């Protein structure tokens, strides 16, 4: 299926034309999508992306070349171009890049779907989406849902990785996702929106397991309740906040995963995605309470960010980024690992054949604690339960972040009371992690596409965690 000989040819060509190190990635992404908008089958789409990415170290610099014109002449020209560009870097601007050592691997790994998405026609996909649409409309009691957008997507990624150290790795991974955007409306109340995604490394069986008809119907009902019943957040100065899994997941991704990316720490992404408030010497320092352990683990079975070898041919592994409140490790590729004098932990990923592999998260989550949800609640005399969110952002050092709740409740004496409209948590990273006093058992995950790099690359990730309790907070926003 793959033109493996062009990969071998490219590897040898790069080495014989000035590269000290070369790696070749042949990658094929076959994707499809069905999009239903306001009950109308808007479009069916197919994407077939196939080509070669070649990364070299030459003349003390790094070069990357990519093409989908897979004849020897063109591939040779691309490689020569990358190598000659490295040669033109002056001594003053040369970084003398090198890679940490790595074990040579010859592996084949696959994630095998139970039900191949290619066996499911667009008719079946749209029938499911239309059933979801019907359930959504019939779940609107005394409010309207003027805008509904539902998308089922699937993708199968096949790769061959070769490098000049002798590694050869083949893989095949299927992924499916479901994205929904709901807009509820009621005269006099305005609108409320919900935007979310489910995704797993599985075949069509995931779509069946998600029970989407009931799931979206429930989401519709709660959005209507938020629209009709939610009241303004309390003005009290100090309160406790219970954060649901969805909010904890985005927090771990944005304010732990990203600032722990070693390429940000050294400044490599400074112009676009930014740097990090973390510096190398902060390794080992306390940043959160004892209750906080944040993990990034690409090996979680069926996870949206699943992989067993990264795009530098390094075996994937769990990384405990924060362990019991202490900064424990950073996310590394081979370039940063040698700079930090550590072993790479297999965090290098690329979106497609035409993208440079860079440091990425996989599945980032807060590790579980011992508390049941009612135990987390019962000790709060006054507070807010922020179950999920819509708006969020964080500065480019990953220090000041904001999450605006969507489904949120007032907590009085350990019981959930009124729905609260758009409570805002706007807080620094150390203050947030240091205020966590209890962590639940209820681990769950959400799917997302994480953007980074230039050209920007979006890679599939899970964000997750259990519910957590954060003490003595103050809600943010305009005074």
């Amino acid at each position: 299926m793959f033109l493996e000989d062009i990969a071998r040819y490219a590897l040898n060509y790069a080495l014989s034309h000035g590269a000290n190190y070369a790696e070749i990635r042949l990658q094929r992404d076959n994707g499809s999508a069905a999009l239903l908008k306001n009950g109308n089958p808007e479009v069916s789409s197919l994407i077939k992306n196939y080509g070669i990415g070649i990364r070299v170290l030459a003349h003390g610099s790094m070069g990357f070349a990519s093409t989908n014109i897979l004849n020897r002449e063109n591939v040779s020209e691309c490689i020569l171009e990358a190598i000659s560009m490295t040669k033109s870097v002056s001594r003053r601007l040369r970084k003398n890049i090198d890679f940490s050592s790595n074990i040579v691997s010859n592996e084949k790994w696959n994630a095998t779907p139970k039900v191949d998405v290619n066996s499911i026609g667009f008719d079946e996909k749209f029938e499911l989406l239309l059933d979801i649409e019907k359930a959504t409309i019939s779940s609107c009691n005394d409010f309207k849902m003027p805008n509904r957008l539902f998308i089922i997507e699937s993708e199968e990624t096949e790769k061959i990785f070769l490098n000049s150290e002798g590694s050869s790795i083949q893989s095949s991974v299927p992924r499916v996702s479901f994205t929904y955007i709901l807009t509820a409306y009621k005269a006099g109340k305005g609108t409320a929106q919900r935007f979310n995604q489910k995704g797993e490394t599985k075949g069509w069986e995931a779509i069946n397991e998600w029970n989407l008809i009931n799931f979206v119907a429930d989401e519709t009902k709660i959005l209507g309740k938020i629209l009709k019943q939610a009241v303004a957040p309390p003005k009290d100065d100090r309160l406790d906040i219970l954060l649901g899994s969805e909010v904890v997941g985005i927090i771990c991704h944005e304010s732990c995963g990203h600032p722990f990316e070693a390429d940000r720490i050294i400044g490599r992404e400074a112009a676009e995605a930014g740097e990090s408030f973390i510096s190398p010497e902060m390794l080992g320092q306390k940043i959160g309470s004892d209750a906080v352990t944040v993990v990034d683990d690409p090996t979680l079975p069926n996870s949206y960010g699943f992989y067993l070898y990264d795009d530098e041919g390094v075996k994937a592994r769990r990384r405990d980024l924060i362990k019991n409140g202490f900064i424990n490790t950073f996310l590394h590729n081979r370039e940063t690992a040698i700079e930090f004098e550590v072993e790479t932990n297999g965090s290098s990923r690329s979106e497609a054949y035409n993208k440079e592999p860079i440091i990425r998260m996989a599945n980032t989550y807060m590790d579980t604690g011992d508390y049941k949800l009612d135990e987390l609640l019962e000790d709060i005399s006054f507070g807010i339960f922020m179950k999920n969110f819509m708006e969020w952002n964080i500065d480019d050092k990953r220090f000041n972040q904001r999450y605006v709740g969507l489904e949120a409740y007032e907590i009085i004496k350990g019981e959930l009371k009124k729905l609260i409209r758009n409570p805002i948590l706007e807080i620094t990273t150390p203050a947030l992690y240091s205020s966590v006093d209890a962590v639940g058992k209820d681990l769950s995950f959400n799917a997302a596409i994480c953007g980074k790099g230039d050209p920007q690359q979006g890679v599939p990730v899970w964000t997750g965690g259990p519910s957590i309790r954060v003490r003595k907070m103050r809600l943010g926003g305009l005074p």
Partner: protein
Amino acid sequence: MMNHEELVDLVVEEAIRNGAEDVAALGSLQKTRMVRFYNNKISVIKAWRNLGISIMIGLKERKFVSSYNEISPEKLIGSVKELIKLGEKSKPNYDYVPLPKGPFKYITRDHKEDLAYLSGKDLVEYAEIAIERALKEGAKRVAGTLICNSEDIALKTSANIFVKDNASSLETFVRAFVEKESSGQGISCSTTLKNFKPEIAGLEAAKIAKMAKNPKAFQSGRYSVIFGPFIFANLMNNVMEAASAFNVDAGLSFLNNEIGGNVASPNFTIVDDGTAKNGLNSRVFDDEGTPTKKTVVIGQGKLKNLLHNTSTAKKFKTSSTGNAGWISPSAWNIIIENGAYKENELFKELKNGLYITNNWYTRFQDYRNGDFSTVCRDGIFEIKNGEIINSIKNIRISDNFPRILKSIGAISNNRYWIRWWEVATPTLTPYALVKDIGITKSVF
């Protein structure tokens, strides 16, 4: 090997032969080179050469689209057959409209200065110029990207359209740091070598970074703000995404007012122009073959037009504006009408408030009502009596787009082309003064 023009011809013929009622094929050959740098050193050099074919097929009111870059005549023929077989099983799109019938008359663009001939060595030298200029101005660390792009494109449709265009551009943005928390960004982007000024990008970035030294915390509240070109371009990209009729229909737009209604200050006009001379994203035809043109979206404060392809135009009972996208229409080049103020006069007009140069991470709480926030970055300054008195850090704009549009005051007479990571659609933008912007910060 067949080129992109021959391949689109092949695809259209093959699709018709296999029963397609409507077919459009868009082919492109793109050559791109990029140099990235940080800490005054080059981190990576990249080169791409890609041939791509995108296909839209209409059959029994079903619409299916595909993009391929596994290019060979045999593969493409197989893919077209597969697409039709899969698409036949799809469901009818109630808003389906046949492709617009050609031929059309397209403008002739006297735009082409093919920058593809620039060598990798040239690009490295330009990067060095940007870095050196920033360092000379006082920057301690310089990061950025320099990119040269050249593209040939061809569209063939079953509705008697075969049209070609090409474009090239040279762009750099530079971020300079004087301290860990004192940074500035500069840019130069152009379709011609003559107007490409990497030294200006380096100089401007370092100037702002120096001004941003020793930033102080600031209080939440409402302040009048002068938006520099980077942040205003980002905000206006969001306005023009909201102007896509697809997004209005999907509930992803705050521009859901009646055409003709007041949506902005009377002095504010924003247009899309696919034909703009020097526009980084100019093209004479859209993806359906409709000629591109200048479309006023907001004219003197009134909503004049949304951006349409033929499908959204039918739904909104109007005509295509030449902004297709087979699924969703989108802007080509965003152009904001300039005002009468010199930049220093804007500061006098502001008197007291903030000057914000850049931002990132704009996210909505509700696309339909326009509630959002965005994080300010690089130089942020407190202004008192028209003068900068402090550098500020760690603030966020927390506001509402319809309110901001109606609060635009003075606008500068100078404008700048902006396209970078946070400004996807090229934007010709002035500085703008906007009243009573909501500013928030972390509470702990």
